[in-house]
Every structure is written in C-alpha cells, then in structure tokens.
C-alpha cells in the first residue's frame, strides 16, 4: 500500500495561519457566560489612578479598554505602559536597549513581559541567574538596567488560561534612581 496519494495538486502555504491575536481579548470574552473584566487590567488601572498619572502612552498590539487618559504623543507622557506582546519577543539585549531609549523620553515605565517569549532566540543564557524563573526575570532586569525596578508580578504556574496573551504576566514599574 502506498501511503501518499497524488489525487490532488498540492499548494504549499508558507504564511502563518494565525490571525486572531489583535482581538484575542475580545474574542475570549465571548467564551464565557458572565460579563467580566480582567484582574490584570484592573490592576494596571488601579496603579495608574493611584499614582495619578495623567498622560499614559500605551504601547500595545491587541485591543484593551483602559479607563485612564492616554496620549498619542510619547514626549507628553508621564507614564509609558507596555502591554505589546512583541516587546517580549525582542532579543534580551534589544529589550534592555529599548527600555533605556524609552526611559530617556519618559522617566516612568510600566512594563508587562510575557515570560514565555523571553530569550526568544534561545541564545542569551545567563547561568548566574536564580533557578526560579520568575525571580530570574526580575534579577535579569535589575542586573541590566541602571534604574529602580519594582516587581508587580503575581506568582503562578501558567497553564495557558491566565489571559497572558491579552496582558503579559510579568509586570515591572521602572523609574529613574
């Protein structure tokens, strides 16, 4: 018996088939009976409101409805909020460079990193970091940034059902010393 049939002409599709990301947050909401808000979204809103930030420049890739005032002009911003998943997919070196560049424009950054993307190239290993991954992420940032880094992340073992692909899970408030 021959395993491979040749009854139809084959066309190779090389582009990625994934196309849900931009609206993933909205789409997921449809799967559940209750109207709901994401815990992580409320946490960010509370942070912004408690600290009285007035003009937030939001670097994002998927749709999120925050209740605070944003600005389209990064130079006017008093806080840069990063929820863009792409940010976590840069090389570790580039993530640090980009944070430094953004800090030169605005002195406060609330950074959300997706732990599952970090060191996406697989080539930037630091064996001196703690074994615990969440601790290692914080240590890596502190080690490479000459800023104050405050960790706002919550500890949990991700099973893919924590809305991490709507708002990245590792959260840090970065300010000038």
């Amino acid at each position: 018996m021959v395993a491979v049939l040749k009854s139809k002409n084959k066309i190779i599709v090389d582009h990625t088939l994934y196309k849900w990301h931009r609206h993933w947050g909205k789409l997921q909401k449809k799967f559940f009976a209750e109207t709901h808000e994401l815990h992580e979204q409320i946490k960010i809103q509370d942070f912004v409101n408690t600290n009285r930030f007035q003009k937030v420049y939001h670097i994002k890739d998927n749709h999120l409805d925050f209740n605070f005032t944003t600005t389209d002009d990064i130079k006017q911003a008093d806080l840069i909020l990063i929820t863009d998943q792409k940010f976590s997919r840069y090389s570790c070196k580039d993530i640090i460079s980009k944070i430094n560049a953004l800090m030169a424009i605005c002195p406060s950054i609330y950074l959300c990193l997706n732990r599952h993307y970090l060191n996406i190239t697989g080539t930037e290993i630091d064996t001196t970091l703690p074994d615990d991954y969440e601790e290692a992420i914080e240590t890596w940032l502190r080690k490479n940034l000459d800023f104050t880094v405050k960790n706002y992340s919550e500890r949990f073992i991700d099973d893919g059902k924590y809305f991490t692909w709507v708002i990245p899970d590792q959260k840090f408030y970065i300010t000038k010393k």
Partner: protein
Amino acid sequence: MKTAKHYQDLTKIKNNDKLDYLKYRTGKIKHELWLKSRKSDSVYITSYDQCILDNLQEGKTGIFGSAGYYLEDCVEDLTVLEKNPIVKKFYPKAIIVKEREDIGRLYPKYFDNFIVTNNRSDMWCDSEGIIDHVKNYKEAMAPDCLFFYSIRDTQFTPWNRLKINHYKMFVGLAKQIEQIGFRCKQTQIDFANGDGNENPDTTNGNIRYIFKCTK
C-alpha cells in the same frame, strides 16, 4: 462586574455549536487549510506537511489533535482522531476520543505512521507531561511506526528560559522520549531571530521530531 484572573473564575458557555466551532478554530489554525482545500481542486498544505508526506512509510496513518482531515486527499488510509466533538459536525469521519488512552484502546498497535502537529492539548506541561502523552500515543503504534511530533517552545511550562540552554532542553526531551521505546531519526529546532516576530513556525511548531518506535 465579575473580575477574572483565570478561566476557572468564569462560567464557560456550553452546548453552543457556533461558539464551540469558533473556539476550535482559534485553537486549530490548520483547520483553515481544510476550509480552503475542500472547495478547491488543489489541496493546501504547509511545507512541514510536505516534509511529513516525504517521510511517511507505507501502511496506516493516524493523526491526532492536529485538524488532520485536510490531509485526507494526500494520505492513503488516514484515520483522523480528535478530542473535540465539534469536529464530528463538519467532518463525520473523525474519530472522537475523550482521553488519549482511548486512542490505544481503539487502535492497539495499529498505525504505521502517527502524527501529532502542534496539538494545543499537549501544551502547558513539562517534559514529564509530554512523556505521559507520548506513552499514550505509543499504545496505538505498530512496531517500527514512525512518529511525527512537533511542539512550540513558547507554550511549554515551567522552565527557566533565561538560564536553561534551549537546544539542550529540547534535545533532552528527545532523549527522554527515546527512553520509552523510540529512536529519534530527525530533530529540527528553530528559534525566532529576536526582531519581535514570533518563532519560525507558529502553525506547526518550531520544535519538530521524527521518531521510530523501537519496542
């Protein structure tokens, strides 16, 4: 309004075919290949599918959790196994299993080729979890069966991506799979280049193995 941290904080809407289909589609992106192929004189596949076709051996082929029905015009004697009952609605030939253990119960030592491509239900576990899944798949494999297995490094948990060598990690996984009665014939591990884009193949998975069942 309710606040949700995790899916379990919310009530899933059940018995809604339209929604079940939407959820299925977002999880099984290769379903799109079937949508395109069924109305066409051509069959749409990925280059990884072509790689599998090039390596298939004669005999019976099983494909699990991979929306594999789009390959029905490419593979002789193909059995499409899925967990989600919604598949039966649009592809009645699919065999729906509740658990992975059911595959071996229904088809003991049956398949000459077994394919699992970027199966979402294999994600979010560590290497021990993967080994448990593979042990279940193995029950359905005939001696010398070829096992085509691919996953994504970004949905594998928990591991310290900043400290552990990624290549060693996934070569190590292949070695662990070998210990339960396989020989690794081929490993392909490709990572993203750090320009902000996803890893090289989010559709099929960027960690790909071909094993031969030895015991």
